[in-house]
């Protein structure tokens, strides 16, 4: 487009300029000289300005001056194009390029805050770790928290509002909303429904109340496909109203769990694992854990005694337990000898340690049975010590506020507008509800979410949601403590936060990002409000907002309903350990994270017990049809050692139909068989289809084949066997030649296998810290996973009821490293501090190092795996090279962290502090199973662990002298003998 210029100035005319004349002001020589031409030009080019030229006036001029000043400033605001980016002329205070800054905030998981410290480089978050000051995480994390940065940078995230699938704008939505609001006002909110996931956010709660105030007939529904709903029902059964139980596992001598996966994935994992592990390992009195469960879980894997028990028989166990405690109506049923043995021991231990024991009952049991736990714990005097109860942390929906109520209303045509906020019911609602069918009957449908997912496709409006790392907001952690979310990066796309959208529903045209949250907390933060606000943001939580014990007395549980006897299979529905209910499905790093027990990646399986596999002639990867009533799913079978004989386990989170290129089209959708919300056990049948399906597992053998990779000690034999003195012609290494004598520090790591629960947090943290790339299912099937740190899982004993062991295996950093000897180009060398280093830019890819490595911890870039999108590039840690094709890589003991600590110490002219360097895996580990440090400092944690009687070296007979060593696991069962 060519712009027309004003008519040219004739210099001769300038001479005719005399005084300012009657008009006084002129805005350009052109105007002064040529009245007619300039006026015509201005009328044509800027019609709005034409009257002003005619009659400027003093006020007009001043207004214009002010406006132009303002507009000049505004030009600096708004979206700037990256290709016009300019360097700082003056560096902002406190910002040094390349030096990370840390912010306390939180990411959300099932509505709960996971308090984090976000590490940002030059304005982009690259790593999240648990907030060390927060009692829930104490600095540790879980795989979901670690991978949240990949969620932020997910290239498939929704980037702009869409109306009927076509790109639109927020302005257009605001206009539509304005007309909708008129409609709602006219009808008192009749037919207006809001659907959210689980909510703990005080601000959202306040906004929903305000919405309800403005539109009294409006109704707010909440739906979390997994969530705490079942637990709340159990608590309601026990106390007459919902309550949140809080477990003090660190105070327990004995824990008895009926299918409650205390240590398994979920918002509670980090807290529970930390508390449990404080009573394992080197502690004087170890906690005993008795677990009866139908599907193998992390809790069962680390249990002292574990009883595989079908869900149908778990009720019997509970009933027998109730009978033991002489609860009226609870009659002792027949039990198998194994069940009887387990139960007697569990009840015996519960009673022996009364006041320091804990009974928990998982959500797969009927709420009637769950009500038993608070009663028994009360009877034993555990209430108040090992468990206490508070008012619910999350906003528990009433009977009419559930998804089931909403779908019923939708079916009845009672819903006029449905606003779905950060919730994906079109995928995650049980198929039995036919949510998608009913949704079509709603005239006005609005969806806000991170992804244009299954639900978004069924709504007229889809609004892109800001990631919690881009938002001001708030939420409560599982202890009830509120965290104010602060953005650590400006929204990457044209998105609004959940709280901004709620404000828009309330009628604010263009809500400020922090307005709603500030309103909530104004006057509640102590001190003057700005200091309190800053303090809350700085700390990452609002002190004093923890849940308080509620005075609740457990009622005598009513007699449970008879579950009847059926020879149908028990089909257990569970969230997936790496993608949960599908909400993390588009994060490739989580898809590629091996499932803790099966080590399967990129798929969900139909886990069958060895007994079912035998009776149906199944082997791994055989396609099966699981039928419950008139609903079926098809999936690949997987024989799960230790699964109860009549149990089939399905996991949610797969079979996505939309929501991103990574998530869509893999696995089967277990929601398709779910009979109703929060119904986790159904009866059904299983049949082989004859087809097979390729599964990608990162570990194909789970038996130790007679070797002692994982060792055990017991009370009777508390020390690991000392290695046999190897007879050799050659003299042993001279201590003076040892590398640890070459430098001031000798780095080493000791992993306590008694504390490891196999949760994968270390792997996820390692991936993020070290830019470990994903390779995809095809490459995993070829055995080319890239994980620098793997957690091996081994089963010992009978397949029906094995003992499960976890063993994290990072690089051993051998002092006599076979790999270093093999490399022809010096690409893998030893540092004076004993780190086995890999020099990527020297590596030519002979792979000799990996051939020679007895631990097979090295990983090779078979192709160029750097195929992540442009957005995910920002997630890469700038301190670590992103490896290219043809290069070997492996665990470096987070050498960048060691060097950073050295630099900091050198700058301050001091020595490294004790335990100053923390590796990413160690930092993430919720159980302190991993300890890293200086072996030369006899007071360091790692040196202390090395002196433990449980200390042993993996494959010590090879003489590689690893720096990474292990502490043997306690065998609690052997204590008896």
């Amino acid at each position, binding site marked *: 487009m060519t712009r027309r210029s004003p008519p040219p100035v004739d210099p001769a005319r300038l001479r005719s300029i005399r005084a300012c004349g009657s008009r006084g002001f002129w805005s350009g020589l052109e105007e002064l000289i040529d009245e007619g031409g300039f006026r015509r030009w201005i009328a044509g080019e800027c019609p709005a300005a034409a009257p002003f030229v005619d009659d400027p006036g003093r006020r007009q001029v001043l207004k214009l001056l002010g406006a132009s000043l303002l507009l000049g400033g505004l030009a600096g605001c708004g979206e700037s194009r990256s290709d016009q980016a300019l360097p700082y002329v003056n560096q902002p205070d406190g910002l040094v390029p390349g030096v990370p800054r840390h912010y306390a905030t939180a990411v959300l998981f099932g509505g709960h805050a996971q308090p984090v410290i976000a590490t940002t480089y030059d304005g982009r978050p690259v790593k999240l770790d648990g907030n060390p000051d927060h009692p829930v995480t104490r600095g540790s994390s879980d795989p979901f928290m670690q991978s949240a940065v990949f969620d932020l940078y997910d290239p498939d995230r929704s980037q702009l509002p869409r109306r009927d699938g076509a790109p639109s704008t927020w302005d257009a939505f605001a206009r539509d909303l304005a007309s909708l609001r008129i409609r709602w006002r006219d009808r008192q909110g009749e037919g207006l429904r809001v659907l959210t996931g689980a909510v703990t956010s005080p601000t959202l709660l306040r906004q929903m109340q305000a919405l309800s105030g403005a539109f009294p007939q409006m109704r707010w529904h909440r739906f979390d496909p997994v969530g705490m709903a079942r637990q709340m029902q159990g608590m309601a059964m026990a106390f007459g109203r919902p309550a949140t139980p809080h477990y003090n596992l660190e105070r327990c001598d004995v824990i008895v769990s009926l299918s409650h996966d205390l240590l398994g994935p979920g918002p509670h994992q980090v807290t529970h694992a930390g508390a449990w592990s404080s009573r394992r390992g080197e502690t004087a009195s170890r906690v005993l854990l008795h677990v009866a469960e139908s599907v193998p879980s992390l809790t069962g894997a680390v249990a002292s005694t574990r009883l595989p028990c079908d869900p149908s028989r778990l009720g019997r166990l509970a009933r027998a337990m109730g009978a033991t405690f002489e609860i009226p109506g609870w009659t002792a049923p027949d039990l198998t000898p194994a069940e009887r043995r387990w139960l007697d021991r569990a009840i015996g231990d519960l009673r022996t340690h009364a006041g320091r024991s804990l009974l928990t009952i998982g959500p797969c049991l009927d709420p009637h049975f769950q009500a038993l736990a608070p009663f028994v714990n009360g009877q034993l005097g555990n209430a108040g010590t090992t468990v206490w109860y508070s008012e619910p942390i999350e906003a528990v929906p009433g009977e009419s506020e559930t998804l089931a109520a909403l779908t019923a209303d939708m079916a009845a045509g009672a819903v006029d507008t449905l606003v779905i906020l950060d919730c994906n019911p079109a995928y995650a609602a049980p198929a039995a509800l036919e949510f998608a069918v009913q949704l079509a009957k709603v005239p006005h449908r609005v969806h806000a979410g991170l992804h244009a997912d299954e639900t978004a496709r069924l709504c007229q409006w889809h609004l892109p949601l800001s990631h919690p790392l881009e938002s001001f907001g708030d939420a409560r952690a599982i202890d009830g403590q509120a965290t104010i979310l602060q953005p650590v990066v400006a929204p990457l796309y044209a998105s609004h936060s959940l709280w901004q959208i709620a404000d828009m529903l309330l009628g604010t045209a263009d809500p400020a990002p922090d307005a709603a949250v500030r309103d909530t907390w104004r006057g509640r933060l102590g001190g003057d409000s700005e200091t309190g606000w800053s303090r809350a943001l700085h700390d990452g939580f609002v002190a004093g907002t923890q849940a308080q014990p509620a005075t609740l007395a457990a009622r005598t549980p009513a007699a449970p309903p008879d579950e009847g006897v059926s020879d149908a299979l028990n089909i257990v529905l569970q969230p997936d350990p790496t993608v949960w209910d599908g909400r993390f499905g588009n994060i490739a790093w989580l898809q590629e994270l091996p499932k803790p027990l099966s080590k399967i990646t990129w798929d969900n399986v139909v886990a069958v017990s060895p007994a079912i596999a035998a009776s149906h002639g199944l082997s791994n990867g055989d396609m099966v049809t699981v039928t419950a009533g008139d609903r079926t799913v098809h999936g690949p079978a997987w024989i799960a050692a230790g699964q109860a004989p009549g149990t089939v386990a399905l996991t949610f989170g797969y079979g996505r139909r939309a929501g991103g290129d990574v998530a869509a089209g893999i696995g089967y959708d277990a929601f398709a068989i779910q009979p109703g919300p929060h119904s986790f056990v159904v009866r059904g049948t299983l049949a082989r289809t004859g087809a097979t399906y390729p599964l990608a597992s990162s570990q194909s053998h789970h038996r130790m084949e007679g070797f002692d990779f994982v060792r055990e000690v017991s009370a009777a034999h508390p020390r690991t066997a000392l290695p046999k003195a190897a007879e050799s012609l050659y003299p042993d290494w001279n201590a003076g030649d040892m590398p640890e004598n070459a430098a001031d520090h000798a780095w080493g790591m000791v992993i306590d296998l008694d504390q490891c629960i196999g949760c994968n947090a270390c792997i996820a943290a390692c991936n993020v810290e070290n830019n470990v790339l994903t390779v995809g299912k095809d490459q995993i099937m070829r055995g080319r*996973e890239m994980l620098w740190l793997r957690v*091996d899982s081994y089963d010992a004993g009978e397949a029906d009821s094995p003992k499960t062991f976890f063993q994290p295996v990072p690089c051993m950093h051998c002092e006599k490293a076979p790999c270093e000897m093999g490399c022809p180009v010096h690409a893998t060398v030893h540092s004076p501090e004993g780190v086995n280093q890999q020099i990527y830019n020297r590596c030519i890819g002979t792979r000799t190092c990996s051939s*020679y490595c007895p631990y097979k911890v090295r990983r090779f870039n*078979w192709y160029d795996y750097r195929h992540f999108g442009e957005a995910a590039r920002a997630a890469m840690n700038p301190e670590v090279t992103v490896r290219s*094709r043809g290069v070997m890589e492996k665990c470096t003991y987070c050498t960048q962290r060691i060097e950073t600590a050295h630099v900091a110490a050198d700058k301050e002219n001091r020595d490294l502090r004790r335990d100053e360097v923390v590796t990413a895996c160690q930092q993430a580990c919720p159980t302190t199973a991993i300890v890293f440090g200086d072996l030369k400092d006899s007071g360091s944690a790692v040196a202390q662990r090395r002196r433990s009687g449980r200390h042993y070296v993996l494959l010590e007979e090879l003489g590689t002298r690893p720096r990474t060593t292990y502490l043997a696991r306690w065998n609690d069962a052997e204590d008896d003998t």
Partner: protein
Amino acid sequence: MSDAAHPILPPDQSYADVTEQLARIPLRFPTRRIWLVAMLLSSALLGLLVVSATVLFTTGVGIWGLNIPVNWAFAIHNYVWWLGIGHAGTLISALLLLLGQEWRNSLNRFAETMTLFAVVCAGIYPILHLGRPWFFYWMFPYPATMDVWPQFRSPLEWDIWAVLTYLTVSTVFWYIGLVPDLAAARDRARRRGWQVFFGVLSLGWRGSAAHWMRWNQAYRLLAALAVPLVVSVHSEVSLLFAAGTLPGWHSTVFPPYFVLGAAFSGFAVVSMIAIALRKLFRLQNLVTDDHLDILGKVLLATGLMTAYGYVFEVFDALYSGEPHELQTLIDRFVGQYAWSYWGAVVFNFVAIQPLWWRAARRNPAALFAISTSVAVGMWLERYMILVTSLHRDFLVSSWGSYTPTFWDWSVYAGTIGLFLVPFLLAIRLLPVISIFETKEILYEEQLHGR
């Protein structure tokens, strides 16, 4: 062998006949059609190598079936196989020369030629194998700006030196042995082009006594260099495995085991070529049944020695009682790759048993079949040693498996093309059998015989 009682060459031929018969082959090539067909097929294989290498270099070694734990397979195993084949040429030429076994004079030329091109095939594999092949020169001690040297403790580094030395010595030895014959061909050439071609290559050889004296010194000196090289090169190749800690690799028996295996496979291929050439060019009078008889005996002997290596490996594992060694042994017997172990046993050791009988040794078809079987068997053995040790090493959790892909096979087939094309060119352009050395046998026989 070529003693008076039993001359290895039929005595009823004159020197001129021999020269005429052999020097005529390049000048008036007899079996053009067969040669052309063979050349076309070989060129197609070579083309396949070019295509495979291009794909390999542009996308990465991921196109092969490799993984962790089996991160070495076809590239290394074929490298060892080709190099082993090459060794027979040197052994026949150099060792038997030094030992005064004149019968080798009928075989040494094409055996050396075979060595040369087999080493070339072996030599390209270490480069194809690299993750970043464009940096292969980092294995040489070139004056790098960062003053980084190669890592001399690495068996791979020794490999570079060993193979390059071997290639150099083999080439020079082959060429020096060729000079008198090149002169003979020059003297018989009629066309100007051939005259210049052979004239330049024959380095002005006139056959003077001084020439012969110098030639003999140089030739025997190089032979004395080449023989220990065979042993050192393949011992070194075996250290590529033995230096690792892996069960099934970490064994002191490896160097002799590998050298003998190399000679075994090499003699097999020499037999195959001898039988093919003798048939093709009607050289039964020069490569006689007696030659085949000797080759058969050597094959049997080296085969049995290699079998001893097998037995000792088993003994070694059982005697050590080391659980990982035992586990690898059992895995070789009954595991996923048992076919490669038992295949190696059958093709290598069962197949050579007929060679105890003179009739089998002197029957070209039978010897050819047995030799082919040995070449296959030794290929399986190298595969077995590599893959069975790697796929299940120490930690059960890292066990895996390996299946070759199309590109694994295509590169291998391509190297057969890389071997055959220059070999076919050599028999087309150069005397396939040493003319003057053959005449030497005749002379010796006539001197002693009548």
